[in-house]
């Protein structure tokens, strides 16, 4: 490898953008070349120095409100679903209102138990090797596996192209009810989607909550209740729901 190439490629190495073969080549060159080794160390140092702070800017609330104001409004007769969805998915102002709704919902003891169980089941799936009973990234293997094991047919969309990899599925129990658990992965984050017939007082519109530090997103579709639990950030979990609901 030529030094003029390597001196630039070490940046791609530091950024994790090289495939295994090229990464090995660049590393080998850097081991033998003081200049490229220095460049690599400096690139990493620069990245670390930048990562030490949050250098993003938060959009002002007034800007968010203005942008929301320019979008077509729901009809005055808008049903509760659209209304709730707006709250669940809108910006900071709406999130405040939505948290009020979540608060009311959370004060139902049954809801507490259900969400508690969902979090426990999620944690169990992470701790043990028992993440899945059927281990497959093929939706056509996972979906039939539930036949005869549970009295519902969960949607099992293939979301690989959208960046959510199907890992498999298993049976679980939430609040004494059997549920189908689907497991997806996004980078290092595991998403458990629990599918049951009626899981608490879920509305059709997606509702985001934070329970024990996990993001929990709930929605109803096709006569089924879905509860997605993950340590993935809100935005990406919301994206997951959108893709899941659209494909399922």
């Amino acid at each position, binding site marked *: 490898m030529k030094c*003029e190439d390597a*001196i*630039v*490629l070490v*940046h*791609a190495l530091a*950024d994790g*953008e090289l495939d295994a073969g090229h990464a090995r080549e660049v590393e080998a060159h850097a081991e033998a070349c*003081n*200049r490229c*080794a*220095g*460049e*690599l*160390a*400096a*690139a990493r*140092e*620069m*990245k670390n*120095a*930048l*990562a*030490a*702070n*949050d*250098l*993003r*800017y*938060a*959009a*002002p609330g007034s*800007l*968010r409100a*203005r*942008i*929301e104001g*320019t*979008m*077509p*409004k*729901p*009809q005055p007769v808008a049903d509760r679903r*659209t209304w709730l*969805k*707006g709250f669940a*998915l*809108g*910006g900071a102002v709406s999130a405040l209102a939505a948290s009020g709704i979540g608060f009311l919902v959370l004060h139902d003891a049954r809801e507490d138990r259900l969400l508690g169980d969902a979090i426990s089941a999620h944690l169990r799936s992470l701790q043990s090797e028992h993440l899945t009973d059927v281990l497959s990234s093929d939706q056509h293997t996972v979906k039939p596996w539930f036949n005869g094991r549970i009295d519902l047919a969960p949607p099992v969309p293939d979301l690989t192209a*959208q*960046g959510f990899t199907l890992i498999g599925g298993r049976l679980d129990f939430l609040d004494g009810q059997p549920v189908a658990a689907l497991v997806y992965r996004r980078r290092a984050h595991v998403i458990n989607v629990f599918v049951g017939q009626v899981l608490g007082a879920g509305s059709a519109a997606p509702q985001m909550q934070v329970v024990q530090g996990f993001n929990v997103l709930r929605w109803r579709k096709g006569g089924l209740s879905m509860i997605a639990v993950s340590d993935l950030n*809100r*935005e990406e979990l*919301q*994206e997951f729901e*959108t893709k899941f609901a659209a494909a399922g």
Partner: protein
Amino acid sequence: MTAHPSMLQKGRFSDAISPGTTPDENKAERFRALALPHLDAVYTLARYLLRDPSDAEDAAQECYLRALRHFDTFRGGPIKPWLLAILRNVCRAEYARRGRAAAPLDEAETDSENVPETLWSASDGSPEATSLVRLDAETARALIAQLPEPFREVLVLREIEDLSYREISQVIGVPVGTVMSRLARGRGLLRQAWRAEETQE
């Protein structure tokens, strides 16, 4: 094939959004759900590109207006790069309005990219000796803001917006190799500025 947002022309679609019918509402709902969570990302890039808070707000708002109008051309995949590409076009129109030619981007390319400035130089001593003092967020932001635009935007897209090289190349419409060399050069320039700041403190 996804329509590249760079096809969008400013001013061509300056009509106001028509009052919503039902399909429009569904579209708006979907758009809201997908695009609004990225407002901070859009605003952040606008702040770094325009270096002015109120211009950045205007640009972010214009970006969302255009994005909603052209939401039909969005073909799935991550929406963030698509939004940032639109934002970038809005910002370039703003440069033109400010009376600056949008050309510096292309000029900078020709003379500085063929001569990559390296991060590390012999004066730094051994590779192990290259350590940077940690600066507070405000100082770091100011140093980034001072970088020449072509290097600033790739650096922000990579280190702050967390885009992949491929996504960056789509956002700014240059090959991945160019993204890589601009990033290398940008880091070199930033490091010099960082070092200078350290000695002042």
